[in-house]
């Protein structure tokens, strides 16, 4: 428990949470390591966890018939991986695999959901952080949607 608490308290994503809140979360936390090429999850599977990346990189990808597997985004240190665990139907929208040896902190989805449902203050703090990440990623995605480097017609 001590080790996972330390892991969590060093995550920028969780900066500002109280020791008591971190302590509650640490119950649902474990360290995880992925070797290069490891598939973390597959599109359509049950989404029951998320990760805070510490080292290494993970790609989010999807299979496009005729074009093979396309990478939609690369996530690196300090990034949050996975938010499909937050809402029904709790299924991954994309697949994820480790590009290189990747160290992460893994949190249990149902456990954290249950925590948030019972402790709204912790729930608010976590949701606020998730929303910030989602907004940043959506804005970056919108910029990419503009396809700025394309050949002008």
């Amino acid at each position: 428990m001590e080790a996972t608490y330390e892991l969590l308290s060093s995550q920028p994503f969780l900066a500002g949470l109280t020791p008591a809140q971190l302590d509650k979360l640490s119950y649902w936390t474990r360290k995880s390591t992925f070797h290069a090429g490891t598939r973390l999850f597959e599109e359509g599977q049950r989404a029951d966890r998320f990760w805070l990346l510490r080292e290494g990189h993970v790609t989010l990808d999807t299979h496009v018939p005729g074009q093979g597997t396309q990478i939609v985004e690369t996530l690196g240190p300090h990034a949050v991986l996975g938010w499909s665990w937050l809402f029904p139907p709790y299924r991954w929208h994309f697949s994820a695999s480790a590009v290189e040896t990747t160290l992460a902190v893994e949190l249990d989805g149902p456990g954290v959901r249950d925590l948030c449902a019972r402790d709204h203050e912790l729930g608010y703090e976590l949701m606020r952080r998730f929303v910030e990440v989602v907004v940043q990623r959506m804005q970056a995605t919108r910029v990419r949607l503009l396809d700025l480097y394309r050949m002008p017609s």
Partner: protein
Amino acid sequence: MTPLRYRVRRRLTETADTVTLVLDPVDEPIVAPLPGQFTMMYAFGVGEVPISVSGHADGGIVHTVRAVGAVSRAVAGARTGDVLGIRGPFGTDWGVPPGGDLVVLAGGIGLAPLRPVIRQAVARRARFGTVAVLIGARTPADLLYPHEYATWRAAGLDVRVTVDRADMSWTGHVGVVTTVLGALPVDPAATTAFVCGPEVMMRFAARALVDRGVPPAAVRVSLERNMRCGVGLCGHCQLGPLLVCRDGPVVGWDRAAPLLAVKEL
């Protein structure tokens, strides 16, 4: 002002639509260009187009040209031995400081005018603190000068590459170039940033740098408007008070931000 003739010494295919031309003067050469300046390149009987300088050496000049219109297609189509016209160099330069940290942020063809800055940083590496080169492109096949990244890294530059889309054969980063910036350690007081790419990308990148604490005047962007004469006489490249060919293309974000914020200025 008549163009001076240059002969294509070498032609390198960079991407499907972009080539790099190494040119030697047939007559007298133009004045040695500074990093960030541009020239007007003339294809016989077709017309003239502004192209940034990507390098110059041995009395020659290097231009990386993307074929986007009739004239640039003709220029990019020049073969070894062909003659093109060149007027210039025109405009302001990047104004690389004598020291400090450098952030070079390039999107697409925007890497072309920044290559002289990178090469300068490589040649005089000891003068600078951290030198980060962030490169964004549409796909891995659209990256410019990929064979040079290893040399830049070997010289101690922090080269980070990202593309908008890729398949699994790409082991690099996928995402907009500004997200790579987010992961970069920046000492705002010591940093001078050079940003070049599509205008929207420059707006996002410059704002992100300013949000990180870099003073707006230390964030330099390279503007693009309809440059025709190169010497502030034809009026086409106006952006508010600026004649971009004369007062730009490189300007500080402190000057560019309020102008780029006005639609259709």
